[in-house]
Structures are given as C-alpha cells and as structure tokens.
C-alpha cells in the first residue's frame, strides 16, 4: 500500500512543481539553518571524557582574606598555591593533579629555527591517565619526577611535527626558557573539546584569554619543574593585593592553580568532600582562611557552571529553531492549499471506497516525501553552513563537522517536521465529504 501511496505522492508532486519546490525549499532552508547550529551546539556541549567524567572532580576552597570586602557566592574558581599543594600532597584521591598554564619560550636543539612562544601546562604525572591522554611515543613522567622536579617534558604531536618532523623524539632535548628538559613522551593528536581541564584562568599563551575551545598546550612539564624553569611568567586568576614579584605567585595572595581529582566511587567522593571541608575548617582555625565554604563539582557540572558554551552559539541555535518553526508553518499552509485543491480527486477516491484512514495515510506519505527531499536539501545546506562556520575565526572552527548521529538527525528532523506540518492538512483532507465533491465535478 505504501508503494502505491508513494507513487501517488510522486505524481502529485510532479503535477505542481513550483509549489513542490517551494515546500521543499522551505523545509531544506529551515533544516539547514537549525542543523548547522544544532551540530555546532552538539560538538561544543559534548562530554569531553565519555564514561569517565562522573569520576572527575574539581574541588574548590575559599582563601579570601579578611581584608577583602569582595562578595562572591561560590568559592573562587582557582586555588592559592598553599591550599592547592596541601590538598595535592595529602594524596587522598585515586588520582590528583595540579594544573597551571604559562607561556614559555621554546627552542629547538638544532637552533636553525627562531624560538617559539608556546603555552605550557605544568601538572602531575596523574594528569595523563586521569584524562585519558593518548601517547604516540614514550609516556608520562613518573611520580618521582613530580617530587624531584625532574627536567622532563611531554610534547604535543603538533610540536613534535614542527620540531622533529613527526619522528620519535623521546630522549631528545628541548630548551624551555633557559633550561634544558628531556622529552619523555609525545602525544597523539589530542583535541579535547572543550579543553576541560583549564576552562577558567586569566591569560595563557601569548596573552590570549584561555578560551575553553582552544587547542591543548604544546608542552607539559611536571608542576614544580614548570614553576621553577618558567618563574615570572605565571598569571593570576585574581589577587587580593599586588604580588611582590610579578609572575611569581607562590607566596602571593593570589588564586591561580587548579586541582583535579579522580574518585572512583560515590563513597570516595563524599569522603573527599569532607576531607576538603575539614581542611577549610582547619585553615580557618589557623587563621589563614576566613570562610569555610567549599565545593566539589564533577566535570560536567563544572563545565556547566563555567558556561563554556559561547552564548552566541546558543543564541544562534534558538534563532534557527524559530526560523524552522516559520518554515513549518509555511509548509503547513502550502500543504493545506495543495490537499484541499485536490478535494475533487479525494472525493472520488472516498466514493470508490477509500477509507478516511487511507486518505490520511496517502496525504501523510506525500508530506513525508516532501520532508525527505527537503532533508536531502537540508543536509546539503547543513554542509554548506558548517563550511561557513569552519571559515570563521573561532577557536573551535577545526572541530566542526557533521558526524553520523547528526546526519541521521537531519533526516529524522526533516521528516518529523514535514509529518507534523502534514498532519493537520491531511486530517482536513480526510474529512472531505465525498458527496459534496462529486456534485461539483
């Protein structure tokens, strides 16, 4: 029966090519606009660590001193050095890493190329297994390297391509500012979106804001090693008074370090929560803290709280859906016109024994077919739209592509919209009284 309806639908669409074209165009444009924005949204709001994100937490404490009258609702988004190192050294989580970014001057061993200014992450050996960072060559440094301030580094695959032509560079030397470090690992191409482990922060690399969708840093060193070799280059998130030496924040009343922990069970998570709360109480008793506010969100909650998705993107998505609604209304009107114009034909079919249900099914088949063709057009327009988004100079341009799920959604949405638009006109058409129509033939 469906094949017959399909045949009827194709005939009907051919009979009125202009009207058909208008309907298909409306659906295609609406789908194209909304799928472009939906795809961008889908890419930007994806879980950066699927399956693991619920185990990754971001503890916060509040080291605001008594002299500050600055009001804030939640503990600050980064930690001061003392709290961060205290919490890290306790080693109470399954994995834990301090994270701080700074711009660093990098020189290749064979000094033929000019020095580069790159972003460097200083962190702990736990960073790599905790965040599932893939290695091409070598691996992470050891916990002993963390403690010994070893002069070692892990570099990105981009930097390895640039400096070593993509060859295994483990064991080679890199000059970071004025210190030589030994490369112990080279990452595979790694592009978490967002760059979840440092979505806050004042400035990083070349003084640009730490954009949540920027590429990961090119150089990773052990935390204390990084503080030593790149002293003077660290930027605070905020300070309560001017740091005695700019860029050197260990003893300054500033927050600038992030702590990430992995806790494998709910019991451990609540255990760690009370550990952090106790720490805050203890620090208040010691007079170092004024507030005992603490907080520990998991990764997804943290990204949510930091509102990493650019508001432009969300705005565009709502706009595109309003536009799709207009296209839907438009198609609805045109389908209504089209079906009612065929009142005579439908009357004859009804008189010859077709049930209301079969007229309804036939009309919906036609609407669905329009939706499918519109979906094809919408898919092409989505590809065009995504191409335009890629051409924009946004930090996430290189991430934007249509994956399989979004490809399927394009057609599902197109057919759903057209069926929705077709339902009312089809219902109207199926209600046509055959006698009245036959009289006017």
């Amino acid at each position, binding site marked *: 029966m469906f094949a017959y309806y399909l045949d009827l639908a194709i005939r009907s669409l051919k009979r009125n090519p202009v009207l058909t074209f208008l309907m298909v165009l409306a659906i295609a444009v609406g789908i194209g606009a909304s799928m472009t924005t939906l795809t961008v949204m889908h890419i930007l709001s994806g879980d950066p660590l699927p399956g693991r994100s619920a185990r990754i937490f971001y503890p916060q404490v509040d080291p605001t001193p008594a002299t500050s009258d*600055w009001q804030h609702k939640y503990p600050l988004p980064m930690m001061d050095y003392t709290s961060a190192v205290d919490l890290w050294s306790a080693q109470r989580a399954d994995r834990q890493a301090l994270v701080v970014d700074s711009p660093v001057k990098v020189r290749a061993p064979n000094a033929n190329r000019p020095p580069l*200014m790159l972003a460097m992450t200083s962190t702990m050996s736990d960073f790599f297994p905790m965040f599932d960072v893939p290695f091409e060559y070598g691996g992470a440094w050891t916990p002993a390297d963390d403690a010994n301030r070893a002069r070692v580094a892990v570099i990105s695959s981009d930097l390895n391509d640039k400096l070593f032509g993509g060859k295994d560079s483990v064991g080679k030397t890199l000059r970071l500012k004025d210190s030589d470090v030994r490369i112990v690992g080279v990452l595979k191409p790694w592009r978490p979106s967002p760059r979840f482990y440092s979505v806050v922060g004042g400035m990083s690399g*070349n003084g640009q804001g730490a954009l949540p969708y920027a590429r990961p840093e090119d150089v990773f060193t052990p935390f204390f090693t990084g503080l030593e070799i790149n002293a003077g280059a660290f930027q605070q998130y905020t300070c309560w008074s001017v740091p005695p030496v700019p860029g050197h924040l260990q003893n300054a009343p500033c927050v600038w370090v992030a702590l990430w922990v992995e806790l494998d069970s709910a019991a451990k998570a609540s255990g760690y929560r009370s550990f952090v709360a106790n720490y805050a109480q203890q620090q208040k008793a010691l007079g170092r803290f004024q507030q005992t506010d603490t907080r520990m969100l998991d990764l997804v909650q943290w990204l949510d709280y930091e509102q990493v998705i650019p508001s432009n993107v969300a705005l565009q998505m709502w*706009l595109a859906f309003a536009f799709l609604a207009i296209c839907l209304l438009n198609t609805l009107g045109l389908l209504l016109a089209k079906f009612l114009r065929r009142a005579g034909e439908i009357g004859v079919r009804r008189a010859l024994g077709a049930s209301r249900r079969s007229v309804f099914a036939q009309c919906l088949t036609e609407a669905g077919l329009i939706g499918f063709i519109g979906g094809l057009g919408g898919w092409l327009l989505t590809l065009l739209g995504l191409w335009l988004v890629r051409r924009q100079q946004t930090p996430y341009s290189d991430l934007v592509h249509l994956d399989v799920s979004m490809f399927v959604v394009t057609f599902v949405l197109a057919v759903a919209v057209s069926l929705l638009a077709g339902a009312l006109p089809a219902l109207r058409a199926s209600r046509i009284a055959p006698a009245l129509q036959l009289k006017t033939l």
Partner: protein
Amino acid sequence: MQIQPILAALKHHKLATVLIALEIALACAVLCNAVFLIAGRLSAMHINSGVDEASLGEIVVTGFDPKQANDLNARMLAGLRVIPGVESVNVVTSVPFGPQNGVNGITLDRKHYNTVVEFYVGGPGTPKALGLKLVAGSLPTADDYQAMPEHDYFPASSRVLITRALANRLWPGENPLGREFWGGPYQFRVIGVIAHLAVSQYTEYGERGAGWTVFVPAQPGGVLLAGTYLIRANPQDLDRVMTAARAKVAKIAPDVVLDHDYSHTLPTLRAKFFATDRAMAGLLVGVILALLGVTAFGIVGLASFWVSQRTKQIGIRRALGATRADILRYFQTENFLIVTFGIVLGVVLAVAINLALMRWFEVARLPYWYLPVGAVVLWLLGQLAVLAPALRAAAVQPVVATRSV
C-alpha cells in the same frame, strides 16, 4: 472598500488565515529581535577607541629576560625609528584591541575597592602618538615620566591622565584635577582628563564597556614596560611600515619571539577583535533574508491557491460590474488584514522573545520603535507577495462566470 465581506470570506478559511497570521507573527518577532541583535553587533564594532587608529600599529615581542629589558627597548626604539615613514615609536604596555595588560582595582580611601580600571603605561610622547584628546588639565611633562622600578607594576607615585568617564565615576560633578586614588601600594594623582581611551579587550557588557582607563607616564624599562611598541605613521604608509617593522624585529633582536597575533596595525587588530561579531551579524542577515523569502513565498503560494479556488466567484463579481481594480484591491485588503492580525500577535511575541533573551543572554531591551518599523516591513512584504496572485485574479474574465455553473 468594504471590509465586512472580506472578513466573512476569511471566516470560511479560518485555518489558512490563522496559519499565515501565525507565520507573519513569528516572522515579525524574529525579524525585530534579529535586526536588534545585528544593530548591537554593529554598534559594538564601531566603538570609539579614543586613539588615532588609522595611524597606529603595534609590535609585540616576548621571550626576553627582564634583565635585558632596557637593552631591548633601546635597540627596538632605535631600530624601528629609522624605518622610512615612521613618525614615532613608543614603549607602551598595551593598546586598544591589543593584549590586555594592567587591569586592576582602585580605591579612593585605601580601604574600599569599588572600581576596576585598566592602566596603560607609556613612555615619553605616548599621549601625542596615541592622539589622546585632552579636555582638562595638562599632559605629563618630561619630569612626570619616572623610571619604572625593575620588579614593579608602576612607579610608587605617578601623575596620570584619566578618561572623562572615569572622572565622572570617581568624582561625579567635581573637579578631578589634583585628586588622588590608589591601586594597591601605588598612588596616582590626576593631572589631566582625556576625552576617551577604550579598554584593550572591549566587552559591551558590565564595567569593561564604560571606558574607565588611566594613562600612567613612565620611562621604559622593568618587567612590564618592555616588549610592546606603538608605531605611528602616515595612514597611507602604515601597512608598508608595519610589514617592514615585523621583518626588522628578527634583525634587531634575533632571540626574542615576535607575537604574530598582535603585531599588526590597529585597524587590523580591530577587525580581528570583532571577527566573531562580524560573522554573527552576517549569519543574522542571512537568516533574515531567508526568513523574509520563505514568508513571502508562503503568502504567494496560499494567495495563488485562493485565487484559483475563487476563479468562478471572481468571474461572477466581474460580470456583476466589479472593475479589475476592485478585484485587485480585494486581495490586497485581504492580505493587509491577515498581515495585521499577524503583526498584532507578532509585536507581543517580539517583546516576549526579547524578554527571554534579556533573561538568558546578555541582550538589552528592544527599543519600541523597532516594532512599528518591523510592522511596516511586513506589511510591505505582504503587499509585494500578494501582488502577482492579485493581478492574476484581476485578469480573470467575466465570461468565466458563464461557464459550467
């Protein structure tokens, strides 16, 4: 033209009428808000920076030892000044649209921090090179350019210029000249008021948009006042000068790293700074055009359907003495009525959407004059769309009435 018969006819096509009206309503709401968003982008993109952008460029280098800052400054100033076409070179901490460098809270009583401002520090001649417009007081004299302490952000006590906006913020209605304020341990005394100087990384929301900035005179040196150079040249020569300057950095100081993101002319930096806003505005324009197109085609489609459905009635009216103009006007009035229903609904919807945007996104209140303008646009669109079907209706011959009755 009698409206009564048209309304009576529309009652027979309630569903289609409601559909078109709804479509118009949504179009009106989206149109008003989208145009308003575009206007917001455009006005943000045209903010006044307060400096002679067309004549200015910036060279940023990093990766040098702070101990060599003075040496680097001397070499860069000497090397860049001799490039043909260069009018002046100054050491600064930042420029509008350049990297942000020197945002700090200030206090009048050394207790309560209430205003966050941006400090621009610059060497002798910087106010003139920037083209700052003095509106009260005087520019810093040669003595006001004190040495920058090696590991400090500012000299302990400086005589500074502030913007008019900041003067109004700190001392509303009072004379700001000679007054002092503090930023941490540093004291600042106001010696002059300038018309305007924008923050480096402009945002239209919150306090950063207000233009609360301070110019601090200082001799180049130290950790902070080194590595960023303001180049002034004739606007026609600027691009050539900047290309030459970028190339020359490798010769002047082979060991530093040129910041390719920020070593540009100010017009280029401005364009880069607003690239996403421009893309957003372009996208909105595209959506508006597509929206108007879809709406117009919807009207054409439905009006054509009605015309063909009513061919016989039109023929009868013509046979009974109605002129072509009468028929034309009938369809035009009908369209006008439907669009008006839509607009009434659309105005309510536009305000509702705007309120939602204000709630969820940082969008300002829609000025009320957008609503009548949006209405007029949709009326015109409706009339334009209905014209072709209406003309076709007007062309129906009276003889049609006699056929197959």
